[in-house]
């Protein structure tokens, strides 16, 4: 097992450099924005990775809260399954639900994928481990979010001459960043023995907040239109190809970072566990 890490590391490094090469050289130059548009190949994959990590954090937190009691655990399983079925059926049954530019099948597949992710986490992570997973994905997610919030303005500056635009996606990412930083602050400052429970509750609240954040800023934008980062609408297939390569590279990189951070967390808890056991055995003569 230990050997796998360096190999994967090398593979990811290779993939990343290949993706960088693609982004810098192979991808066609964007007519209006020119070379600067290539930041797109780092900005968007980082954002997608961050959102995926936060979603995993949400799933892990829900599981931590739900698996404490077998009854709620079963209910949650059924709720997740129904959500999965709904995301499959709804886009076909009610076509109006499908937003412009998205195909019903893509919504269905993402629905199934996310439900699959829930049961994947359930299988591979014990109850205590979901808490470690939640902490890891939150921390690494915040790092990726910081990258997005740094590269965003760096892209807006040359194109629109302003550092910050209240663009829907960028602002939602900022709010998401604030929520998960407050999550990490809560974990650091909590003095209760049950920090994971508090953190899981806040994570669920944070995740409930995301759609509301998105819709409120989306409507806010329609009333005060401002330039949109990355331009919506259709995208040149070759660009999409490079984008997906970059995303794959970043996903592997994120996986490695999460894995090492997870191992660090597990080691930290094992050390704490042994120290606690030692404290348990040696008599507290000091107090006498």
């Amino acid at each position, binding site marked *: 097992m230990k050997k796998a890490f360096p190999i994967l590391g090398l593979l990811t490094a290779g993939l990343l450099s290949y993706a960088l090469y693609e982004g810098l050289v192979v991808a066609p130059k964007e007519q209006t924005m020119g070379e600067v548009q290539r930041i797109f190949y780092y900005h968007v994959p980082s954002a997608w990775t961050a959102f995926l990590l936060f979603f995993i954090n949400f799933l892990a937190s829900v599981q931590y809260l739900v698996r404490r009691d077998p009854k709620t655990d079963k209910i949650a399983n059924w709720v997740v399954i129904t959500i999965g079925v709904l995301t499959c059926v709804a886009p076909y049954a009610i076509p109006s639900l499908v937003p412009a530019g998205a195909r019903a099948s893509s919504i269905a597949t993402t629905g199934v994928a996310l439900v699959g992710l829930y049961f994947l986490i359930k299988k591979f992570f014990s109850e205590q481990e979901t808490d470690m997973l939640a902490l890891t994905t939150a921390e690494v997610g915040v790092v990726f979010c910081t990258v997005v919030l740094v590269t965003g303005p760096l892209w807006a500056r040359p194109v629109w001459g302003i550092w910050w635009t209240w663009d829907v996606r960028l602002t939602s990412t900022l709010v998401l960043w604030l929520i998960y930083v407050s999550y990490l602050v809560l974990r650091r400052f909590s003095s209760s023995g049950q920090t994971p429970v508090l953190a899981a509750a806040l994570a669920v609240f944070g995740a409930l907040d995301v759609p509301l954040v998105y819709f409120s800023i989306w409507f806010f934008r329609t009333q005060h239109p401002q330039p949109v980062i990355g331009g919506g609408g259709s995208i040149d297939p070759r660009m999409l190809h490079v984008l997906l390569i970059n995303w794959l590279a970043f996903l592997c990189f994120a996986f490695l*970072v999460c894995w090492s951070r997870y191992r660090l967390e597990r080691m930290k808890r094992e050390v704490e566990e042994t120290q606690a056991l030692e404290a348990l055995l040696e008599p507290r003569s000091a107090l006498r």
Partner: protein
Amino acid sequence: MTYLYVAYAATWAIHIAYLITVVRRYSRLKQEVEQMHKKKS
């Protein structure tokens, strides 16, 4: 063009900074484990 390189550099600066903190926490933990073993043996 420079903004492009600044953006790439910034991205990796952030990632590497984070990895450094992880590695430093890892080594501090390793030392603690060694001390515990030394104290026990």
